[in-house]
């Protein structure tokens, strides 16, 4: 009698197992695929109050357009606001610049650098630069130039920190004047190196 009860129990459990195995795991499944690209930093003609820097806008083409000019050996810089992150993957910067020089008999190098800076103090630029690259300006009228450089490691950041983009004349000739058109094209895009 005991044996038959055990046998019945086993059969019943097997049946319950089979029944529960056939219950739905889900009513439906929704799958979405998204492409995430790195942020774009646009050079704006808007000044950062109390500084010589202009604004570097994250993912927002500038409404303040215009052009800036500077002589060889000097620079202009664009600073972003705080990134609010503690770290940044090893970055690769793709620069896009609309530029010209007053004398293009030979290519005139423009030095492009990106730093980490603290916009809350405005004087705190973290050395050295994350990366640096040269762009040869070859025309006396505005033209589009591109260049790329990468950081060497993951960036450890204070959440207050942002990026500072410095553009400097590197011809070694004081008579050369560089002009940058802040037209919405002048920007850099960050991706993972």
């Amino acid at each position: 009698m005991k044996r038959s009860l055990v046998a019945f129990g086993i059969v019943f459990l097997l049946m319950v197992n089979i029944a529960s195995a056939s219950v739905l795991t889900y009513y439906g499944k929704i799958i979405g695929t998204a492409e995430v690209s790195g942020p774009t930093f646009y050079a704006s003609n808007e000044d950062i109050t109390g500084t010589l820097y202009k604004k570097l806008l994250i993912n927002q083409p500038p409404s303040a357009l215009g052009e800036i000019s500077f002589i060889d050996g000097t620079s202009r810089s664009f600073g972003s606001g705080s990134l609010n992150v503690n770290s940044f993957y090893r970055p690769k910067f793709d620069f896009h610049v609309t530029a010209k020089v007053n004398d293009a008999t030979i290519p005139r190098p423009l030095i492009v650098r990106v730093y980490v800076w603290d916009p809350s103090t405005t004087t705190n630029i973290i050395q050295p630069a994350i990366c640096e690259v040269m762009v040869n300006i070859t025309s006396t009228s505005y033209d589009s130039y591109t260049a790329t450089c990468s950081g060497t490691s993951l960036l450890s950041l204070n959440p207050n920190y942002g990026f500072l983009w410095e553009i400097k004349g590197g011809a070694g000739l004081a008579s050369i004047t560089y002009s940058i058109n802040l037209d919405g094209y002048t920007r850099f895009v960050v991706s993972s190196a």
Partner: protein
Amino acid sequence: MKKIGENMKIMSKKVKIFGKQISVIAIALLAMAGLASAGLLSYYGMITGTATVKQSLVISSDGSTWKECTGGSYDACKLTYDLGEMVAGDTVTIEKPFYLKNNLPVNEPWDYVYFAYKYEIPENLYDGLTSFKVSYEASTNVPNTCDKVAEIPLDIFKCDGTTCSAMIPDKLGEGMIQKFCGTTIGLKANTIPDTYTITIDIIPVERIESNVMHFGPNGWAGWSCPIGTVVVGGETIRADNTVKCSVSQELPWKPGASVDGVSYPSTPFGYTYDASKNEQGWIVQNDNDHEDCIIYVYCAK
């Protein structure tokens, strides 16, 4: 006569089966009984019925073509979307609606299908999130608007090193249609650029009802999910009607949970959950009064 005599002789013979002497007559009688019983009716009649079981909750991409996991085929109830491009540092609204319909006939008493949205996000994307909101609307017809917005707290996601997941319980009344209108995602500037796949599973949820809890002022009580299931939500309803009990706090009780200095598997009311079996539940603290309440725990596999 002689022949009959010989037959009688045969009948009186015995054969040995499993070491026992059995008469040939007995074997012949058993064989005849067997033949006779084989000729009896197995049944007086046969009724054959075919039942088609429809899925209680079905999904659709357009609110008109409803999909169900026919025959247990999950490919049949799958929707796939291209969510487009998002830029790190931005807040993006992705409008890729889908619809859920409660297939149950509308009958008294009003009943619900309980389910949960199970979100699964790659950990690299989760690490880059600043906010995650969904908009939705429910109606007896296909909703045209999307007025309701729910923020999904990022701290409810659990990550395993590759994927982060969270389950949000929900319910849909008989005959109702819910439109999941879209998602608004805020991304940090340092979100790693990549192609990410986000999934939302609509999973069945069991609604477990507790005994009536006789709460005293600030008293605690809880109710567990069946072992083998995990808590996805809960609510506390008055025992005498359908109004929510006035509780001061209620929360899922599962590994990692803590409240007022007490951590899982201990509870503020003295019971210890069986952590070895991953026992989970919903615990409630009454506010400063006496109330009889029922705890409903939402549990999923």
